[in-house]
């Protein structure tokens, strides 16, 4: 298995607080890895370090053998990392289709002269990708709707479709189950599993232990910014340090 993403001693300090403290791990091509941890464990910060939204205080991040820390988010995205956000960030005043097409356009490139004088090749490539991503999440019937008008659950899929339209090699999902009920969470778990089955490499940050334990091949556990476990779900489940972090230890 080839390694896609390598995180080496990633550290991020905010003033006196060390949000992520020397975390190292790797993600191989085709893997489905979960990152869990209690609130404030540094999960989202770790994601932002990978996607370039937060600069590292120390450490390195490599993607496909290239060093990506210190690069701008759009350059990292173009290398093949698609992401979603913790608090659902869609483009509310744009149609579902237009939302998704932005993902495709970002990867294929936009330029003013091409849009004015160029042929239809670029726009058709963008449209095809966007349509394929919508079909993948089953939103093609709502393509013309304004994103603000569709239900919360569907917006979650819209956000994933937008990342899929980038045709990334690695997709990172930041708490995709937040705000979903049990049925919706189960559906989402099945969807992520199917996505992974189709060959996508997925890095999943999730609060919902059940979701992560149920579908991930490997789980990275963070607590207070440090990695305390990195193993298969059944191993992590019995790990003393993990149990302590989640349940507290009896005096």
């Amino acid at each position: 298995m080839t390694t896609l993403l390598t995180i080496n001693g990633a550290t991020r300090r905010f003033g006196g607080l060390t949000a992520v403290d020397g975390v190292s791990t790797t993600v191989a091509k085709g893997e489905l890895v979960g990152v869990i941890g209690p609130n404030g464990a540094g999960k989202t910060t770790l994601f932002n370090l990978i996607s370039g939204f937060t600069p590292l205080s120390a450490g390195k991040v490599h993607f496909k053998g290239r060093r990506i820390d210190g690069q701008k988010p759009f350059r990292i995205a173009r290398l093949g990392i698609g992401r979603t956000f913790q608090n659902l960030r869609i483009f509310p005043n744009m149609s579902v289709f237009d939302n998704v097409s932005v993902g495709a356009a970002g990867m294929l490139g936009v330029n003013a002269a091409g849009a004015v004088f160029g042929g239809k090749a670029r726009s058709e490539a963008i449209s095809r990708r966007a349509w394929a991503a919508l079909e993948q999440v089953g939103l093609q019937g709502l393509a013309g709707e304004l994103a603000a008008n569709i239900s919360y659950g569907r917006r979650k899929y819209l956000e994933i479709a937008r990342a899929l339209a980038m045709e990334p090699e690695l997709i990172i999902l930041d708490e995709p189950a937040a705000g979903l009920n049990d049925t919706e969470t189960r559906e989402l778990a099945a969807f992520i599993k199917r996505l992974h089955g189709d060959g996508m490499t997925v890095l999943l940050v999730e609060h919902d232990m059940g979701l992560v334990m149920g579908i991930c091949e490997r789980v990275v556990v963070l607590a207070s910014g440090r990695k305390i476990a990195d193993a298969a779900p059944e191993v992590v489940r019995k790990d003393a340090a993990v149990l302590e972090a989640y349940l507290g230890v009896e005096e």
Partner: protein
Amino acid sequence: MSDRLRPLLVVAAVLVLVLGVVPAVLGAFDRSYLYQVANLALIFVLLAASMHLVTGVAGLLQLGHAAFYGVGAYTAALLTTEAGLSFGWTLPLAGLGAAFVAVLVALPTMRLVSIYFAVATLGIGQMLYLVMLNWVPVTKGPNGILVTSGLTLFGYDLSRPASAYFVVAVVTLASLWVIHRLSHSYYGNALRSLREDDQCADAMGLDTVRLKIESFAVSGFFAGIAGALWAHTAGYISPADFSFPQSILILAMVVVGGLGSLPGAVIGALVLILLPEVLRPVGDFRNIIVGGVLFFSILLMPKGIIGEVSALDLVRRQLGGAWRGEGTKAGSEVGWR
């Protein structure tokens, strides 16, 4: 009606109206005042359309647009009066001059967000206005510049009111076509995503800073083009033509027409230029009526005369720019071809 025929008919209708019906009506009355009003209306259509791109589509609240209009007008006027260049040169150079100033302005300000960016453009608009007013050796200051020559193309004199109208109309229509292609394409989609959430657009692989600077420059370019049209058809320019109230007037056109909507910007400009002219018989009272129309239109139609959603829908269906997924029914056109 077939999908191929409809866009051609829409374009033909616009061309017949602007290049056929309007000049015929103007010719029948043959008063230079009416030609002046028609030119002014077209120039403001172009100004509103160029502001639509940066403020409506890319979401950057621009409060100094008139200053770029002024840079274009002064560039054209000075190149004509001082260097003796004709319209074929002054028009593109006025656009490029304004675009150049826009890039200079954009470089330091693009990292500002929302209201802070707006205040920065307000300051820059004021600065450029004060340069026009006080750099007397070059701009002639408050006396303005008399532009009596220069409206010639390939040696033909186009300064007669009727031919000048055609020049303004053709340049405006061509510019509108470019702005239409920019706003109604994947490029416009990318700009809209900056307006909605630029961090998120960044994560999609869009170079958000480059796109913002680009949209600002393109918008400045067309404001400069409008300035050249004004300098050559009005015959006289002075700093007051490019002051802050003019920026606000253009902003009002874009908002009343529908923020983010190109047809809205065009209609907003026509309403706010033609309404005061139509109301001329009622005297000074007309300004109160125009104010009232502004107030009530925004109260009753906060999304504008043609809101963004309906405008995009209209363009997709009437101009055939939409893409249709396989197996979807007619009427569900999405995206841009």
